[in-house]
């Protein structure tokens, strides 16, 4: 994996979710530090001035982004500060997509527990991915050609499609 290769800072993975032309594309690559979560949140707040994310969803979309970034730093890159995370935000007329990339091995998403189950309800952890699924309209897990793991979160803009509750 050659992170120094400049072509790496590219829109990999997002083709999955792109149907209409892009109007905005942001990509931010930083070292793996929790302090950058606030940076991404602030950038998202600026982006929201240009992308019509419904006002009542903004805090929740920001929460999803924060959860994904924290997971990338803690679980994906295992707190190794030399590793990189990258956040891409892409706007099209239909959707706003946020992808969080880390250098980790990913995880088995089918093995995730439901934090609402009685045996999990009093656990302090395990609510991040659940909240991401609640607050965005589509969640995908991808891997790019360089082996990076990406969590793709899509927020529908044109009309909000009704989504199934995760069971």
């Amino acid at each position, binding site marked *: 994996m050659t992170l120094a290769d400049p072509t790496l800072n590219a829109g990999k993975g997002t083709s999955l979710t792109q149907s209409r032309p892009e109007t905005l594309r942001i990509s931010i690559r930083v070292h793996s530090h929790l302090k950058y*979560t606030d940076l991404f949140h602030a950038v998202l707040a600026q982006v929201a001035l240009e992308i019509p994310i419904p006002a009542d969803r903004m805090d929740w979309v920001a*929460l999803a982004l924060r959860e994904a970034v*924290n997971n990338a730093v803690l679980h994906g890159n295992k707190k190794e500060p030399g590793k990189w995370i990258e956040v891409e935000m892409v706007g099209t007329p239909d959707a706003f997509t946020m992808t969080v990339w880390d250098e980790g091995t990913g995880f088995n998403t089918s093995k995730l527990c439901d934090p609402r189950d009685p045996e999990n*309800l*009093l656990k*302090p*952890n395990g609510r991040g991915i*659940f*909240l991401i699924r609640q607050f965005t309209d589509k969640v995908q897990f991808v891997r790019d050609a360089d082996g990076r793991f990406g969590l793709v979160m899509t927020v529908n803009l044109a009309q909000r499609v009704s989504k199934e509750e995760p069971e």
Partner: protein
Amino acid sequence: MNHRTYEKDGVSVLELKGTITLGAGDVTMRDVIKDLLGKEKKSIVVDLGEVSFMDSTGLGELVAAYTTARHQGATLKLANLTKKTKDLLSITQLAAVFESYDSLGEAIGSFR
């Protein structure tokens, strides 16, 4: 996260302010609760009225505070939940775990 603790009518009030998120605070909610429990406080109300943003770590801190209190024979209740905090507790079904009150007065009064 900013916090302040004080006593009112025999109840310990932990007032939280700002964002309760991973990495944002130097002192964690858990530390403050441990401190109160160490002082043998048995009735604790967490005032969330000024909390603007909470993430899953913040929720986890609340849950940990709740269970730690319970294990030590103390009771932790919530007061002044914002619409957003209410939504978050309801989505995660933690609303069923916590005893929560619309005002601090009601929360304190509930210990009588």
